């Protein structure tokens, strides 16, 4: 097949959840291929911004044929997106990348504890994951000041705990504080968020020898694995020199927690 291409999506919703974070719902041609943890490349209309913006798929509604995105207004591109109106069209490519694996869920019982840990705009892709995963799902979410998606997670998880740096919601602190305070014994950890957080989660999980899947972020150009700008370091063998670069866009964004090397 050589006919995959940029598609037009219809914007069905584009509204602020917080002053900085927006929710966009896209009517798309097909949702059948989208798996939790994948992303789409969203294109700016202003041609001075050439590169597509990678945004995680936060929810997939197969019946409605929609993808839900949650994005933070950070720079020029997301500022452009925030101004788009309902029923405008927007170009996108995807779904792209390798998402989370749900495999263990098929094998293990519903009563196995699974930890889902998200921070900031790393939270959105975990929602579709939480929906599709089996198991006793506990969700730890960290934010700066205002939370997002907490009610959505509550619908699909056993427990949802929130931490904010400012203390405005949940406990004052980070997801690591939640992790230390709770008595968790997960069989698996899924996480997405800022690098510092992932690194701390990885250390915690390593200590307990717990399998992990971490979703990484890196600046991208092509999003399809060709340009090699989005590399992350992975450990490929027992020796320190056995590291290699993988592509966040194509080999990830989700990686086994064991192999990721943070720098």
């Amino acid at each position: 097949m050589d006919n995959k291409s940029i598609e037009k999506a219809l914007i069905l919703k584009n509204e602020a959840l917080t002053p900085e974070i927006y929710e966009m719902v896209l009517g798309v041609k097909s949702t059948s291929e989208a798996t939790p943890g994948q992303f789409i490349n969203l294109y700016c209309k202003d041609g001075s911004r050439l590169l597509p913006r990678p945004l995680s798929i936060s929810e997939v509604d197969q019946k409605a044929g929609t993808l839900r995105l949650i994005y933070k207004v950070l720079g020029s591109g997301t500022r452009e997106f925030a101004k788009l109106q309902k029923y405008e069209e927007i170009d996108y490519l995807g779904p792209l990348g390798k998402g989370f694996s749900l495999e263990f869920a098929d094998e293990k019982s519903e009563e196995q504890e699974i930890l889902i840990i998200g921070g900031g705009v790393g939270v959105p892709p975990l929602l579709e994951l939480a929906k599709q995963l089996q198991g006793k799902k506990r969700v730890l979410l960290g934010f700066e000041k205002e939370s997002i998606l907490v009610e959505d997670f509550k619908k699909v998880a056993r427990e949802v705990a929130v931490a904010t740096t400012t203390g405005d919601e949940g406990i004052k602190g980070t997801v690591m504080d939640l992790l230390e305070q709770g008595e968790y014994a997960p069989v698996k950890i899924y996480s997405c968020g800022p690098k510092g957080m992932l690194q701390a989660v990885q250390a915690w999980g390593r200590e307990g020898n717990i399998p992990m899947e971490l979703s990484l972020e890196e600046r991208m150009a092509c999003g399809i694995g060709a340009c090699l700008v989005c590399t992350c370091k992975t450990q490929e063998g027992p020796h320190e020199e056995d590291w290699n670069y993988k592509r966040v866009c194509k080999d990830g964004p989700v990686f086994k927690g064991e192999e990721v090397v943070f720098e």
Partner: protein
Amino acid sequence: MSRSEKGPNLTVKLSGVELKNPIMPASGTFGSGKEFEEYLNLNRLGMVVTKGVADVPWKGNATPRVAETYGGMLNSVGLQNPGSDHFIREDIPFLESYDTKTMVNIAGRSIEEYVGVVTALQHQPVDFLELNISCPNIKEGGVAFGTDVDMAYQVTKKVKEAAKQPLIVKLSPNVTDIVAVAKACEAAGADGISLINTLLGMKMDIKTRSPLLANTFGGLSGPAIKPVALRMVYQVAREINIPIIGIGGISTWEDALEFILAGATAVQVGTANFRNPRAMMEIIEGLENYLKEENIDGIEELIGAGHK
């Protein structure tokens, strides 16, 4: 069968080899093609140009390796590649499964390294070699060869001696006198010149108040650089007798046509592949339509037709 019955004729002859059309990817923007299989039919391309291949694996630079700029982008990949052995084992069989010409982009830090890769490729089913003496992202060698007339001559000569395939030399635009460098390569036996590699640039991150790229500097590509690339192709076309492959910001068939009018026999599409993985298909179709509408028998008529 007359040409007009066959439809618009996009074939061009590059250093004696006929290409289906003058459109090919720019090195480093297309991998070896695998990632684009879903998006376009590699058999439709005039040629596939691979990423840079060195004699041993290179790990490249730290991230961030990319920054968007106005109408362009900076990259500082630093020629990350798994080395010629891996390339010969993995990529060549893949490319052989397609009915398309191939050009392997050659990376090196010294004449010996360049010669090493070319020697390894001597008996491989490869149609062209593209000698990259213009990568701004590695400290030793690379761009140093491309910004010095004598070194450009030396490396071209030595590599040409080892090369079994036609040798295209890819030049850096970060020079005072591009014509002098191109002439030196011609004199040293190059079979063609490709123009241009990226312009050296940078971006500051005002949030962190430091350079955005881990490597500080990066190579500027995309539509922003097209006027500089086109000028260099035009200048060089007047002064050399070997074919030129035009590169730099080509995103539409009109862009490709500008380069052909300026004297390019073929063109490479780089950054545009990132914005639209089907860009090259659209360029090929655009050129076909143009020839049809303008009643032009073959695109070769237009090569250099814009000189006055």
